[in-house]
């Protein structure tokens, strides 16, 4: 066991730290559009946007350790994301790099790297969420076009996106996984209607998307007809060790400890309450377990073994922590947890409420905890499929 990095890796870390010291002052207004525009321009001059992608398509060609170092340093400084095409950089781009034609790569990859516009992901449907492979949104080939009819739901940022990566059923008679095709759809089509859905925290990040006779040229198909499931899975297959997320979880834990330090229980400082102390220490054990699990998975990756189902372990920890830590903040606040965001009486402008209500984005978004448990029990423990 060895927990140090090579000189070369440390040099890279220094490079990142220096960039952040210069371009991300401590008092930077991280949500200010002017600051973000400036930030995006500067990071685009580095090779870090699309860092894991091959250099031939304009990516950074960063090796795994460098990617981890970059993300960890960014998270430590609460840096805004690199590039502003969130889903394009997270998975649409890698799917296009793996399955796209040369034309598609030329057309989309530079725009994703430059953050020219947003992508959204049309996977879930009202009747098919966890059972995604049964999706029914229909595409019928007519000449050089697919004609699409159906509905998607829980489509994050659909209302702000120019393009969508969409899964449709092209062959209703094939086995469910084999009848699915992936197409890239421009959202401006008059047959597309987007209806935002308000969530329980009061925001509207996701939407319903309706398709009525939407015509998509065949050249916008990603991969072969019937290959859509494979395109989707392989974008998810290259799982990451999840180490970068841990930095964020440690920060949340520190914030929670800080809240405990200024809260009181039964007339005494909350940090003197054994129940509070134990609860916070348990959170710490779980976050530290995530960190060390991540390091073991990273080691596996560095030895050239791809990660797959084992990453469900940290997804379950993360899900539990998002729920329980968010909820515990409200418990520490006691009755004053009730005052709503925006009310003068609220503590910290009501930010703890947002934390306690926004967890489904993480917890349900990437596959529910029960689905993660199915993955572990079937693919790792070898129990019969449900």
């Amino acid at each position, binding site marked *: 066991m060895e927990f140090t990095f090579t000189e070369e890796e440390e040099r890279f870390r220094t490079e990142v730290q220096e960039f952040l010291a210069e371009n991300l002052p401590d008092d930077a207004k991280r949500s200010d559009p002017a600051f973000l525009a400036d930030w995006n321009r500067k990071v685009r001059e580095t090779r870090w946007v699309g860092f894991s992608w091959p250099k031939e398509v304009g990516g950074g060609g960063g090796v795994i350790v460098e990617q981890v170092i970059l993300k960890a340093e960014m998270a430590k400084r609460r840096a805004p994301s690199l590039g502003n095409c969130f889903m394009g950089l997270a998975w649409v781009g890698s799917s296009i790099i793996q399955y796209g034609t040369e034309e598609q790569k030329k057309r989309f990859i530079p725009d994703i790297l430059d953050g020219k516009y947003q992508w959204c992901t049309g996977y879930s449907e009202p009747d098919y969420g966890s059972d995604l492979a049964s999706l029914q949104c229909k595409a019928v080939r007519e000449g050089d076009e697919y004609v699409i009819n159906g509905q998607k739901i829980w489509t994050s940022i659909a209302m702000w996106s120019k393009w969508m990566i969409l899964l449709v059923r092209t062959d209703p008679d094939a086995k469910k996984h084999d009848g699915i095709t992936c197409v890239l759809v421009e959202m401006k089509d008059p047959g597309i209607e987007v209806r935002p859905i308000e969530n329980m925290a009061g925001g509207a990040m996701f939407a319903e998307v309706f398709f009525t006779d939407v015509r998509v040229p065949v050249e916008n198909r990603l991969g072969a007809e019937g290959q859509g499931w494979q395109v989707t899975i392989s974008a998810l297959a290259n799982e990451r060790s999840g180490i970068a997320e841990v930095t964020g979880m440690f920060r949340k834990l520190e914030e929670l*400890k800080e809240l405990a330090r200024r809260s009181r229980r039964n007339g005494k400082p909350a940090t003197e309450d054994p129940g509070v102390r134990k609860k916070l*220490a348990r959170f710490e*054990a779980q976050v*530290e*377990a995530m960190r060390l699990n991540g390091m073991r998975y990273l*080691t596996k990756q560095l030895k050239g073994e791809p990660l797959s189902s084992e990453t469900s372990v940290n997804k379950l920890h993360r899900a539990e922590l998002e729920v329980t830590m968010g909820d515990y903040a409200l418990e520490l606040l006691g009755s004053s947890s009730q005052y709503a965001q925006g009310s003068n009486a609220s503590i910290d402008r009501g930010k703890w409420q947002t934390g306690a209500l926004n967890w489904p984005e993480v917890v349900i978004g990437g596959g529910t905890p*029960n689905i993660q448990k199915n993955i572990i029990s079937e693919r790792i423990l070898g129990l019969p499929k449900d």
Partner: protein
Amino acid sequence: MNFGFTEEQELLRDEVRKFLDEQCPMDRVRELMKTGDGYSPELWKQMAELGWLGLTIPEEYGGAGLSWVDLVVLLEETGRTLYPSPFISTMLAAAAILDSGDDAQKQRFLPGLADGSRIGTLALLEEADVLGVEGIGLLGKRDGNDFVLSGTKSFVSDAGSANLFVVAFRSGEGANDVTLALIEREANGVSAESFPVMDQTKRLGQLALDEVRVPADAVLGKPGEAAAAITRLFDRGAVAVSAEMVGAAEGALYLTVQFAKDRIQFDQPIGKYQGVKHPLAEMYVDVESFKSLVYYAAWALDESPAEAPRSVSLAKAYATDAFARIGIDGVQLHGAVGYTAEYDVQLYLKRSKWARPIFGDADHHYERVAALGGL
């Protein structure tokens, strides 16, 4: 960056696993746990010959000179098979001598621990069961250069079979004025015995001292300055017990997984039902997680002592809570047969009860984490 085992460590694991599977399968474990001292002197001798009893003892004192990370590999396997022996006790006695002893003491005692002729154990706790210097009440009376001890040390693992005790006693007025010394079973006034234990694969008992003379050359380190060494021994003990918990929890998990694949109800293997497979997935998540914590704690003990206290406590606390639940769920998922003496899963449940208080329960260690974390 490499949070994994070396090829040599993987080979050691294979070798230990093969040895235990062949020499001490579960029916042999069940025979041994019913014997008086609860271990096989013959297998003990073989372990010495294989170099495992001297694993962490430097070569100059007859050992293999390996680290606590290597020891974890071995302990995972002894945990998985519930192998009954005074192995952890002996490793901890060796660690006490290595951490605090002088060269003469190392020359005198370590070769015997490595070759299996000596069985060592720690005698730190007393009836109050307080895991810390404040729990030490046994008074060492000065008599020239010697100390004279009269009293009882409690909760001494393998007290019945050990012949070398690392004893903690109070040597002065100050709160931290505590001393460690080596006492041999043959010395005048020493008697030790193990009592029957719920986990029959383990032995626990007491050491009674009646006017026992401790000469200066039996004191480990300087008199009155053993507080830090004692804390370190508690930490080593917590890591050793937790490493066995990793193996035992995994043993219980895979025993139950196999049962869930084989047992048919409503025309299906019960492992097909989410009510069964989800608790098994949760067990897997917990074992994977405290495994990571234990590996890191073992590494920190030798390579990064400053972070060891926090790492050790996180590992022992998480392992203790999780293994307790795994023991209970393992039995419950077996249904009625899990309740029978015949099925092995109950032995793992009992091991989880054993491992909980030994070297500190979850409350103890979480409180330490909170304090170390500035709360």
